[in-house]
């Protein structure tokens, strides 16, 4: 009761973060439906690691622990990272990635609100560079491979690295639809041949396209509840569509149709949940458009011409670097000033 205003609209940081977590649920539910419950194990593991690392770092930094543990931001980082890691990955992969994301990418930069980079994507980048083999053990959608693990068998593999007798990991995992596409294009297969493979669904990968729909549903909820603005998702998906469409027009045998790019990899998740992280994205609307368009361009280039299976993570990190500059040069006009804000 000291300063005006003395009233406030109470939607706290923790409520906002909680709503973002809720918005992830439809996508996660479809993930479980198509790929089995292993993802829930990685989400749980990542969540526990995130909360533990957060508490430890807060203690080391002499910050109050309870209010920050309750802000749900560490959980969000954990969930986004878990969703980027193959569900059947060994437990330590999830733990190392999450701990790195929280301790290094978040707290060493000053904690909540101060990180230049998206912590989940930093965690992902560290893992894919350090442990490329483990990071490509993607579970095949259920029903596509002969061998399938029960939930307890999955737990055995995740925590103990034990597979049932006579079963090899290759029999359970597959390359992602994006990866498969890249490999087969190198083998000079036509797109038509490639898309006849069972891994592909209607527009993207079998199963994964439905998960993407789930994330899009959650993203629309975030837009409707005004937690995110339309600028980043629209600019990201729009630019990705236009670039893919132009390449597709020029050479339809080698460049896949734009909708495939939307519904494979982390495009939808990135557009609504990753690039929209308020801390590491621009604060001006025009800046958001530039940021998301740049991320879409980089995503496409990395996917199609680069060496990594997906480009969303690296595109996000590269664009994160540009944020201060973008914000500085996209200052909106101030009330009563003819020209745009002075650039200091």
């Amino acid at each position, binding site marked *: 009761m000291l300063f005006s205003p003395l009233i406030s609209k109470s*939607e706290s940081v923790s409520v906002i973060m909680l709503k973002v977590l809720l918005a992830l649920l439809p996508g996660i539910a479809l993930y479980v439906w198509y790929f089995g419950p292993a993802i829930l194990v990685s989400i749980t593991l990542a969540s526990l690691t995130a909360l533990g690392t957060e508490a430890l770092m807060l203690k080391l930094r002499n910050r109050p622990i309870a209010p920050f543990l309750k802000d749900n931001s560490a959980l969000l980082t954990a969930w986004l990272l878990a969703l980027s890691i193959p569900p059947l990955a060994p437990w330590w992969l999830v733990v190392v990635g999450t701990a790195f994301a929280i301790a290094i990418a978040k707290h060493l930069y000053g904690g909540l609100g101060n990180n230049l980079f998206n912590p989940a994507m930093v965690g992902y980048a560290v893992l894919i560079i350090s442990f490329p083999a483990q990071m490509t053990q993607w579970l095949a959608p259920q029903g596509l491979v002969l061998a399938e693990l029960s939930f307890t068998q999955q737990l055995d593999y995740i925590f103990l690295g034990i597979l049932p007798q006579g079963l090899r990991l290759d029999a359970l995992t597959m390359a992602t639809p994006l990866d498969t596409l890249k490999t087969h294009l190198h083998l000079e297969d036509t797109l038509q041949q490639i898309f006849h493979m069972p891994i592909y669904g209607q527009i993207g990968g079998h199963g994964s396209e439905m998960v993407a729909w789930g994330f899009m549903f959650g993203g629309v909820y975030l837009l409707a509840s005004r937690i995110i603005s339309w600028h980043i998702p629209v600019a990201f998906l729009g630019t990705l569509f236009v670039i893919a469409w132009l390449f597709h027009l020029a050479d339809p045998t080698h460049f896949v149709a734009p909708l495939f790019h939307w519904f494979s990899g982390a495009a939808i998740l990135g557009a609504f949940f990753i690039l929209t992280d308020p801390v590491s994205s621009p604060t001006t609307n025009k800046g958001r458009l530039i940021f998301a368009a740049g991320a879409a361009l980089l995503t496409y280039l990395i996917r199609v011409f680069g060496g990594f299976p997906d480009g969303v993570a690296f595109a996000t990190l590269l664009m994160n670097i540009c944020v201060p500059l973008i914000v500085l040069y996209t200052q909106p006009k101030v009330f009563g000033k003819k020209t745009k804000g002075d650039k200091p």
Partner: protein
Amino acid sequence: MKKLYHFHGGIHPPSNKAQSTQLDIARTPLPSKLIVPLHQHAGETAKPVVHAGEHVLKGQLIGMPDGFVSSAVHAPTSGSIAAIDMQLIAHPSGLPNLCATLIPDGKDEWVERKPVADYRSHSTAELQQLLRMAGVVGLGGAAFPSDIKLRTGKQKITTLILNGAECEPYITCDDMLMRERANEIVQGSEMLRFMLDADEVLYGVEDNKPEAITALQQAITASGPALQQNKRHEVVAIPTIYPGGSAKQLIRVLTGLEVPSGKLPTDIGVQCFNVATAYTVLRAIAHGEPLLSRIVTITGNVRQARNYEALIGTPIAELVALGESLPDTNGYIMGGPMMGFPLPAMHVPMVKATNCIIATSERLFPSPPPVMPCIRCTRCVEVCPADLQPQDLYWFAQSREFGRAQAFSLFDCIECGACSYVCPSHIPLVQFYRFAKSEIRAREHDKQLADLARERHEYHELRIEREKQEKAEKLKAKEKAAQAAKLAGTEPLKPEQQAELAELEASRAHIRELAQSAVEHSKD
């Protein structure tokens, strides 16, 4: 229907106005004492013109305007001056100020009033002086002397805006005044229009006050012949959005014009007065009554919220006693919940700027949750009516990067508090902006002092230089005499001696030049 414009941002806090509009405006009983601050307005403190022990009549001048931006202060009722001393006043700083304490004699006896029968026969300058001496200041909150706002210079004023928006939650004093005294407001507005020679008068009233809008419309229709012909008076219902009653935002909504940054509304041909100010103008001119009372909303955690016409100087404690605050009351706010401030003590007096007193309780105004770091969610940007980047300004203020804060238009912030209202991290943003502004102002003040000191130092240097110069001239004259004596008596100088002399001469000339240029420089 008049075309309305839009300003960026704004919020919709719960209005809480219905509580205090159930009953009509009541007059307060005569308080036991009145503490009348001599500085109730923007600008210079009025100079006391009465002594302790003196008997004064109602409306008698007790504080003479002192300086260009200043206003008069009067005795709100008849009685004797008990003291003229420093008293705690209702100001966020909690610092005392010069006040006259008046013990009423209960007679409420008026000083001789001099109503102006036909103001149109008077010059604008005369009327301005009348308002200055009647202590008329803006009653919307800033308490800026109204006569200054009528001195518009050469700029032609096309539109006079009467601000009846009253966008802050809880406050209803303007609403009730418009409902009950619309005729006086319209007549006072016409006086203001006459003094400004404006072409049209627009009454901006938020559309959550339909009774006030109807009352003003009826008053305009009724006083049709009294208003000068071809000069339009129009009531405009504007959307209810905070801070729609902020002058710049209201001008934008009604005219589509933006007051340029660092300029005044008059620079774009618009002037803005509060409806209550118009009422006071009428009382001052047509009835010869200086500003002695105003309408105050007593609301919040009280048994009966209501508007009162109260004398300036009434102790807040006596005022809120009328509303009967509930047992769990834990404090009082002066002004609205968005821009008001908690009162430092209950014995402070109400002033010309006091539009509302809100009794607070934990139920109505829960303590804010702990402050979290800014996550740059830009909810503040979405609601900022000045199109600023509050999260950046906060960052700069916090890290004391005042230059950058200024470059990011800190001084265009109107401190409406919309940013803090929506902040999910519950950061008291406006406090940071006030801090940065006051730091910058203090630095500018320091810089001015430093400039002054440097000037003094330069004068000092100059004096020393001049003394040196005079000494050098004396020396030169001496040497010349010696040389002449030498030349007359002995053999001519050797070439090297001549060169030495010439060098000496040249360096002296240089010193003189330096001194000369310093003198000229200081004259510039």
